[in-house]
C-alpha cells in the first residue's frame, strides 16, 4: 500500500512539474529554434539524472530512522508550502495557475531577447530551456530522492517520475501547445496533501513515535490532511466573500 502511495505521489508531483517545464521548452523552441531548446532540455535531464544517481545511493547509507526524521521534516516544510498555496488558490486569495498565460509571457520574453550564437546554437534558447527544466526538475529530483530513500525504494520513485516524463513528452509532442487542460491546480493540491501526509508520517516515526497499526495509519493521516485542508478552503472562501466589496 505504501508503495502505491509512493508511486502515485512521485508520479503526480513529477507530472505537474513536467507540465510546467514543457511550457518553457515549447516557448524556447517556438521562438528560438528547436535545436537549442532540445539541447537545453537534454543537458538539464542529464544533470538531474546525475543528481538522483549520486545523492540517491548516498542517502541509503544513513540509518533509516535518522533519514526519516530529516526527510520527514523537509517534506513536511516543503509539503505545507504546496498545500498552503493550493488552499489560497482554491479559496480565491491567490490567482489560479494558468499555463496559457505563462506560455504567452515566456513567448513574449523570448521573442524580445537578443540573439547570441555559441557553438552553432542560440544561447538564449538553450539557457531558457536548460534553466526551466533544471529548476522544475529539481523539485522532481528532491521528491524522488526523499520519498525513495525514506521508503527504501528509490527505483520505484524514479520509475514513477520516468513514467510521468514519458507521458508528458508524448502528449507535448502530439499537442505542441501548453497542456492547459491538465487540471494543474487540482494536481498541485493533491501533491501538497501527499507531501504533507508523508512528511507527518515519517517525521513522527523519525522522532521515535509508533503509529497505531503501522503502515495502515498512512491513509488515516491522508484523510486527516484532506479534511483539514478542505475545511480551511471552506473557511477562507467565506472570509474572502466577506472581505470583497459588495
Amino acid at each position, binding site marked *: 500500500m505504501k508503495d502505491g502511495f509512493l508511486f502515485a505521489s512521485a508520479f503526480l508531483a513529477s507530472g505537474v512539474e513536467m507540465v510546467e517545464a514543457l511550457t518553457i521548452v515549447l516557448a524556447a523552441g517556438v521562438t528560438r529554434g528547436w535545436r537549442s531548446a532540445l539541447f537545453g532540455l537534454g543537458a538539464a535531464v542529464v544533470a538531474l539524472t546525475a543528481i538522483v544517481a549520486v545523492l540517491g545511493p548516498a542517502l541509503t547509507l544513513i540509518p533509516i530512522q535518522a533519514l526519516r526524521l530529516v526527510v520527514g521534516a523537509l517534506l513536511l516544510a516543503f509539503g505545507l508550502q504546496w498545500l498552503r498555496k493550493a488552499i489560497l488558490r482554491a479559496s480565491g486569495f491567490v490567482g489560479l495557475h494558468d499555463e496559457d498565460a505563462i506560455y504567452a509571457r515566456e513567448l513574449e520574453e523570448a521573442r524580445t531577447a537578443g540573439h547570441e550564437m555559441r557553438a552553432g546554437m542560440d544561447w538564449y534558447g538553450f539557457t531558457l530551456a536548460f534553466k526551466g527544466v533544471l529548476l522544475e526538475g529539481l523539485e522532481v529530483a528532491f521528491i524522488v530522492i526523499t520519498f525513495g530513500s525514506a521508503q527504501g525504494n528509490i527505483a520505484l520513485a524514479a520509475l514513477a517520475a520516468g513514467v510521468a516524463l514519458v507521458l508528458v513528452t508524448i502528449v507535448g509532442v502530439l499537442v505542441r501547445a501548453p497542456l492547459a487542460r491538465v487540471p494543474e491546480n487540482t494536481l498541485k493540491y493533491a501533491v501538497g496533501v501527499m507531501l504533507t501526509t508523508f512528511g507527518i508520517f515519517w517525521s513522527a516515526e523519525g522522532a521515535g513515535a509508533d503509529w497505531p497499526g503501522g503502515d495502515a*495509519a498512512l491513509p488515516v493521516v491522508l484523510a486527516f490532511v484532506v479534511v483539514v485542508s478542505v475545511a480551511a478552503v471552506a473557511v477562507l472562501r467565506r472570509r474572502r466573500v466577506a472581505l470583497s466589496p459588495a
Partner: protein
Amino acid sequence: MRRLAAFGRFWWDFVVGDDWRAAAGILGSIGVTAALVALGWNAWWFLPAASAVVLWLSLLRAVRRRA
C-alpha cells in the same frame, strides 16, 4: 561569494519558502514529539495536530497580508 549566496537563497526558498515561521513551527513540533517520546509517551498524535495548527496560522498570515 554571490553565487554561494544565490545557492543558499535558492534552497531556502525551496524548502522554507516565504513563511519561515511555518518551517520553524514544524521543526519545533518535531522536537516536542521527540521530547514526549523520550518521556515515555507514544506521541504519534502530536504532529498531525501541530501541523494543522501551523498550517492554519500560516494561512491566516498570508490572508492578512493579502487583505
